[in-house]
């Protein structure tokens, strides 16, 4: 039986992440409901209010969706229940740093 002292929201059935709408302790098994699909996920990390967690497995290099739209890409494999944030999600837009790295790579001939 899951403890219902928490709130979560999953915005779109294409998404693989949901948002914690309360602080949720590590190890809590949460139910996530989205468009008549029910998921049960045990959290591997403590989640602060407003933070995301994976509901389904996400592969490295896979686009991460919220609102059914791309919010970034996974920089490593992410398991259900893991906190999804800047440590495992890279933004894809406005990435001038990548251009610099590419140029450095070219200059160094690597």
């Amino acid at each position: 039986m899951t403890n219902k002292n928490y709130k979560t929201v999953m915005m779109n059935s294409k998404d693989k992440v949901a948002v914690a709408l309360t602080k949720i302790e590590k190890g809590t098994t949460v139910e996530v409901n989205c468009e008549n699909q029910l998921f049960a996920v045990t959290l591997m990390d403590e989640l602060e209010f407003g933070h995301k967690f994976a509901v389904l497995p996400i592969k490295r290099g896979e686009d991460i969706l919220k609102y059914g739209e791309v919010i970034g890409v996974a920089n490593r494999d992410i398991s259900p229940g893991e906190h999804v944030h800047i440590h495992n999600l890279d933004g894809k837009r406005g990435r001038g740093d990548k251009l610099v790295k590419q140029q450095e790579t070219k200059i160094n001939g690597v």
Partner: protein
Amino acid sequence: MSNNKKQKLMGYRRPNGEVGIRNHVLILPTITCSTQTAQRITELVDGTVTFIHQHGCAQVGEDYDQTFRTYVGMGSNPNVYGVVVLGLGCETHQARSVAEELKKTGKPVEVVSIQDNGGTLSTIAEGAKIAVKMVQDASAQQKEPFDFSELIIGTECGGSDACSGLSANPAVGRVSDKIVDLGGTAILAETTELIGAEHLLAERAVNDQVSKRVYEVINAMEDRAIKAGVDIRTGNPSPGNIKGGLSSLEEKSLGAATKAGTRPLQELINYAEKPSKKGLVWMDTPGQDIEQLTGMAAGGAQVILFTSGRGTPTGSPIVPVLKIATNTGIYEKMSENMDINAGTIIEGKETVDSVSDRILDEIVATCSGKKSKAEILKQHDFGIWRIGPTF
């Protein structure tokens, strides 16, 4: 359902037919050198406002034009009864040229120059004397009813958190739709914070030209970050946004875009430009709160709706800014800054639609004279989006 659609708004009719919801006398310094003198005048004369800035000299080209347009826009805003344009005398952005443009609105406009007056003290006296007369004339003006179709609202989010895209922004989106349906205008801005959501807005453009402009302004903004050689995430989302659970600019943008409601995108206008169409309009501004707020005030917005999850004190010298909290925690913690709580949506106590009705009621009340928290706290923020170097 509130009956705000039936309510008539009350405002001050201007000579050019526009309507203001405030009756400020603006002391407008066209050059950073005259801002202190302007400040002194506002300390002496009740009913006057001004703003401090660092601009107005040694600017060229498009950057010159944009600053000029911002000054003229601030003075032209219908919330301003009359303007004392305050210059130094030798600057690039001549007070006289700004005043010439402002006179086209038909409102009272006078020019005072520090060098012509022979110094600070006589300029303060001269400016204050003019302002006293303007304030008294303004106070004699009666309010009259006006229609929602004459209203321009600006929309903005700042200090976003993960709730922004779930509560306050969708509620502002509903308000935007309702204002548009009543014949009014809603300005969407902050181009930076639409990177990643541009396709959703381009789909709603009224024609191919507007759709093309959407991608042009987005690409231009994104190119600036790329040319700087940095991950835009080092500046946007900000550390506060990231602490609030936003992981990337795209995620922030998708939440920010819900402020735009669902109505067709009529046009894309430049920074500080006045909308030429009614309905939903996109102004090309950066995401920085004060610069975008200033752009919309200069574009003629009479009221600005500003959502925040982290909380913000921001206001404008001439436009009431209604701050809408995305979560109840920040609404309670920063109660002297936040006007409306949309956190009830997160708690399941209210729907997006019922909060949007409350916001609309607050707009009606604000138009009729209720003061926003930012007005009470004299948050006279002002910042120009500079697009060129200072020489």
